[in-house]
Structure formats: structure tokens, C-alpha cells
């Protein structure tokens, strides 16, 4: 397969392919962080995760229209405003959903699966009624599309770099929140023992709500960023939900580090196999490997050690 090419060409292709793997890694991290917070820390199986992402994407779409209509001069910077608003919108919806639905189900974690799946259907139909059944086109500022030539042969997509930077910053932000803030300490306490956490004076109700809200907000930011690489339509969230759960479950639900490690290994495996095999085959092999590993190690790559 490679005999026809010079070393420099091959080198360039492999460099770009490596970069493609890193982009995929960042995409997975962005997708999964919100769910890792909600599913990992709270045990809520949030099937509506994709719809919270798409809410962020629609907010970005609205912002792009608003800016191009009223503030064309600032258009190249609208994306940052859109991401902040996406966080606020999805986060607010998350708070509402937690209050209206999730908090009644903490004692029945499996039921959250059905309830949030129903929620995802409702949200999809709301998007469809409001924005139309067709996908909407989000105009991305010119500077974010296109590629940066590194050498004559190697070109790096700018939106890929953007996604990577975003993934790293959000991961750091979540890490700081989780392990350095009072809120994070409370979340982890509740995760370990809800009753004791309440007994020592932690407001578990409010902490839960905030956690769910932040998880959804992070999903919104991810959705906003994905307008650069994917589609924005009522059911686009469904494209991400399987991969998202895969990453979180494979990493070990309760561990944020596990999520990142799992995103890295899945993305690298998939991107390398996609290069050498066909696309569908790569997906099949990735899934098979994951199923195999989970059979041997059902708790995922990283598991918290808890005294049962």
C-alpha cells in the first residue's frame, strides 16, 4: 500500500493522521466530560445528553444569525459569546430538568434511563417545531475554517486545533472544580455516601442540582463547538450519544481521569484502524475490543476504590 510513496509523503500523511487521532480524542473528551460528571458522579443515566449538546448548537446558530444581522463587525468573535451562552442555556435547562424530573428519581437510578430518554424525544420534537425539521447551517467565522500549512505537505485544520484547545481548557476547568473547590468536595462526598454527606451538613439537594446543571452546561459548550465539524438538526444529538456512553463506561464511570484515558485509547484505536481498514470495519473492531475488555474488567479502566 505504501510502496508508491516517498518517505516525506508518508511522514506527512502519518503526521496528519496522528493529528486526526488527537482531534478525535478532543472531540470525545468534550462529548464525554459533561456525561462523566452527571453519570459518573451522580449515577444518572442521562440519555438526553445529546439533546443538551444540540441546544448549545442551536444557541450558536441563533448567535451567528444575530451577529451577522446586527453586529457584522464583531462576527469573527461571535463564537466565544455563543459558547458562553450555550453553557448558560444548557446549564439552565439542566437545572430545570433536575428540579422537575431527576430529583424524584435518585432512589431509582435505572428509571432515569427511561425518563431521560423520554426527555430526549420531547426535546427533539421541540427543536423540530421551533427550528424546523431540516438541519440548520451555522456560519462559522472564516478564520476558524480552513487549514494551516505547517510544511508543504502537512496541513492542520484550524477547527481541529480549536477543539483541542477547548477540550484541554474545559478539562482543566472541570478538574479544578472537582478537586479544588468546595463544590467538588461536596460532590465527591455525596458520591461516596449520600446519607453521611447530608448528616455532616452538605446541602445535597442543591449540590445535586448544580452538578447536573454544570454537566449539562459542559454538554452545551461541546455542542456549540461541534457546529464546526458536524451537523445541527433536531436529531443530531443522537449521533453522539452512543460514543459518549462508550467513552464514559469504558473509562470507569466514576473517574474523570478514566474518561480521559478511555477517550484517548478509543480515539487512537479508531483513527489508526480507520486508516488501515474500512470505516465500518474500524468501528466494528473498536466496539469488539471494548466489549472484550469490559467483560474482563466490568468496572472500566479506572475504578474508585470504595469500602463496600
Amino acid at each position, binding site marked *: 500500500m505504501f510502496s508508491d510513496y516517498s518517505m516525506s509523503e508518508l511522514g506527512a500523511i502519518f503526521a496528519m493522521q496522528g493529528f486526526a487521532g488527537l482531534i478525535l480524542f478532543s472531540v470525545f473528551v468534550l462529548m464525554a466530560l459533561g456525561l462523566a460528571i452527571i453519570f459518573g458522579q451522580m449515577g444518572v443515566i442521562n440519555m438526553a445528553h445529546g439533546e443538551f449538546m444540540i441546544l448549545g448548537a442551536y444557541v450558536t446558530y441563533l448567535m451567528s444569525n444575530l451577529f451577522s444581522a446586527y453586529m457584522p463587525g464583531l462576527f469573527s468573535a461571535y463564537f466565544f459569546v455563543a459558547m458562553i451562552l450555550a453553557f448558560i442555556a444548557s446549564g439552565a435547562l439542566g437545572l430545570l430538568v433536575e428540579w422537575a424530573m431527576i430529583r424524584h428519581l435518585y432512589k431509582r437510578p435505572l428509571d432515569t434511563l427511561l425518563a431521560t430518554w423520554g426527555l430526549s424525544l420531547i426535546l427533539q420534537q421541540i427543536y423540530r417545531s421551533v427550528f424546523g425539521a431540516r438541519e440548520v447551517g451555522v456560519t*462559522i467565522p472564516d478564520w476558524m475554517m480552513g487549514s494551516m500549512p505547517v510544511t508543504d505537505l502537512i496541513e492542520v485544520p484550524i477547527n481541529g486545533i480549536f477543539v483541542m484547545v477547548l477540550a484541554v481548557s474545559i478539562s482543566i476547568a472541570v478538574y479544578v472544580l472537582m478537586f479544588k473547590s468546595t463544590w467538588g468536595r461536596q460532590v465527591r462526598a455525596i458520591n461516596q455516601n449520600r446519607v453521611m454527606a447530608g448528616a455532616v451538613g452538605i446541602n445535597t439537594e442543591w449540590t445535586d442540582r448544580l452538578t447536573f446543571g454544570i454537566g449539562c452546561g459542559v454538554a452545551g459548550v461541546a455542542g456549540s463547538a461541534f457546529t464546526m465539524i458536524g451537523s445541527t438538526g433536531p436529531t443530531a444529538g443522537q449521533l453522539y450519544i452512543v460514543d459518549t456512553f462508550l467513552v464514559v463506561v469504558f473509562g470507569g464511570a466514576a473517574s474523570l481521569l478514566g474518561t480521559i484515558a478511555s477517550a484517548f485509547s478509543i480515539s487512537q484505536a479508531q483513527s489508526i484502524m480507520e486508516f488501515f481498514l474500512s470505516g465500518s470495519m474500524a*468501528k466494528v473492531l473498536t466496539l469488539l475490543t471494548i466489549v472484550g475488555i469490559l467483560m474482563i474488567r466490568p468496572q472500566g479502566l479506572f475504578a474508585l476504590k470504595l469500602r463496600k
Partner: protein
Amino acid sequence: MSPGVNFDEVLGGDMSNKKPTNLNNGVSRRAVLAGGAAALTASLFTPKALRAADYPTAEVNTTGLAVTDDTVTIGILHSITGTMAISETGSVQAEKLAIEQINAQGGILGRKIEYIQEDGASDWPTFAEKAKKLLVNDKVASVMGCWTSASRKAVLPVFEQYNGFLYYPTFYEGLEESPNVIYTGQEATQQIIAGLDWVAKEKGAKSFYLLGSDYIWPRTSNKIARKHIENFLDGAKVVGEEYYPLGHTQFNSVINKIRLKKPDVIYAIVVGGSNVAFYKQLKAAGIDMTKEDPIVLTISVTEDEIRGIGGENIEGAYACMKYFQSLTNDNNIEFVKAFKEMWGDDMVIGDVTQAAYLGPWLWKAAVEAAGSFDVDKVRAATPGIELTSAPEGYVKVHENHHLWSKTRVGLAKADGQYDVVFETADLVEPDPFPEGYQ
């Protein structure tokens, strides 16, 4: 705010409140012309004001269909909820427009068309169930419906068992010919071969990279494309063939593979949400399609899909199909105008939407030729039916229930429309079971 659809209108079953007032049977041509813009458009379709009285119900309906002295009921069966609503909404709109125009002209055999709309909900068993409901409970005289091949395959046994009559609008993979279905879109050889010949001749393309979503239509289409490239195009070869699961959103690896193979043409049959991801990532990877190195040729991106992809992300790609909104013939100018009047100025019309629009008109012509609503008589009258008024130009129904139609190549522009750069001189014969391509 909503670029899409006025949902109330699509969902609402009753359209009598929007209809032009001119519904008298046997109305004169002048009266039709006075009836307003919708009727004006309709008048292009050579109104023959047939009187219901000349066609007694007992004679035109011997099989117990839902035909009365002044109405005939048909079914519309598309997904208006679920994943496929994205695509099928346009078809529903086109069918309703055609029905409204036919009614404005006096209907069919003097009978006004009424319709019962059912939602397939993007779920194939639901399609079958609703098809059965339409045929058995509602006794509809024909059905305009389905979009994906999967939904058509699901309803096919129902239509054959209860002898219904389905008009199916989507371009599809062929390999099917049912006595109970009229295929108003192109089958694969019609859509593929002319485009490949064009790109080989005009652009001197020698090497092709075939890419598709992983299901029957892209796979069958690429199979035909590969056979044609290898057997009929001199010195041309396929350098890669690749499928990705539906809904796949990461194409960076395949884009690198394409770079490595340096094909002259990327032949892309990617569908749905993947489409958007593919073109955005192609552009982000620095492949400028306007430079035609490589050329991107697709058969799966209509004007409808470009709205999601964004014109600026697909500018310079070529699409091969039978209809583009930018066609300049008079039929099409009227059609686009009427469509936008009914559904809003921001609507775009893709290939399938136009094919869906043909359904009611083809059925009308066949019923009038048969002088009866009976499915067997309509079927017998159908081969050879012509429409000179189709937006795509002249079409004719083949013995095999597909349409003779021209194939065109369009160049995508930043505004989301196509410039037609090529069309076949003659109508292309439909060939759902192509020999040498299996």
C-alpha cells in the same frame, strides 16, 4: 427565526381553508385564470375540465375505493417526526402543492382530491402499519409516500397484498419493480452513469475514490459506479472504496487516505448528518473544492442538504441528479414560484421534492387515461403516460414503472444553489435491473 417549515401546515390534515375558491366542476378556463395566482400556475397544466357527471361513481370505482360523487381520497405517508423528517418534509409540501393545483383546476374526473396524511415517524414498521390503515380502513385510491428504501421495502408487501398504488419519490438503488409502485425518482443507473461519463470526458478524470454511508443505496450505487468506471471508461480506475456507518461524524482519517491516493474524483454518497460533517471537515482539511483537485462529485446532496452543510462549505462540488431548483425552463419557474408562495420564500427545492410533486400529476394523468380510479385500470394505463409540464421538463413513464428523465450535473455555489453545467441530450432510459452491473 424558523428557517424550516411551518409545522402547522405540514401537520394539519385539513387544507380546505387554504384552497382557492374555484372548485366548481367544469369551470371555464377563464374562471380558473381569474382564481388567483395558484390557479394561474395550475392552468399551465392544460386543464381539461372533466365533469363528474360524465363519470358516474359506480363506473369509475368498482372496487370500493374512497371515491364519492365529488371527491376522491388519497393518502400521504411520510415521516414528519423522527430522523427522516429532515428529508421528507419537502416531499409532503410538494405533494400538497400538486394536490392544491389539481383541485384548483377542477380535480380528477370532476372530483376534488382529499387526502389523509399519516406519519411514518421514521420507523419502518410504523410505515407498514400506516400503509395498511390507509389501504384497508380508508380505502385510499393511491398513496404518495415513503422516502428511504427501508420504508419502501416495509410497505411493499402491504401494497401488493391489498393492491394499493404507491408513488415513491426518492432516487434509489433500483433492483426493484413492483406492479404496485411508480418510482418518480431516478434509479441508480440513470443517476450515476451520465455523471461519470461527463466527469471522465469533460474533466479527464482517470482515478476515482468511492465513498459512502454504509447501507444499501450507497453500496449498490458504488457497485454500479465501479463497474462502469472499470468496464466502460477508458483507462480509468477505482483507487479506493470506503463506507462509514450512518451518523459517522469524523472523516479526518478518510480525508488523509484520500490525500495519499490522490484521486482525480472523490465520488461521495454520504447521507444525513454525516454529510455535513464530511464537507465541513473536507474544507477544514484544506481541500478547496473550487480548485477541482480533486473534483468532488456527489449524488446525495440536493439543495435541501446544502442548507445544513452551508453553501460556503460545499462550493465547487458537483452533484449529479435529474433536477436542480435553478433550472430555467418555464415549468420550473412557475413551480418554484408556486412552491414559495405556498410554503414561504426561504424554501429550497431539491431533486426529491420535485419528484414528489410529479406523483399526484402522474396519477391524475393515468386516472384520466384509464377513465377510472380502479387500481388495475390505472396500472394498465400508466406505462406511456407523459407529462410535458413537469418542472424537470418532459417525463414519460416506462413499462417498468420508472420514469424516463434527463440527468444533469450541477456545480454548487456559495449561495446554496447549483449551476447546471451539463444535461444529457436525451431522456435516459430507466434500467432497474442493469445487466453487466450486478
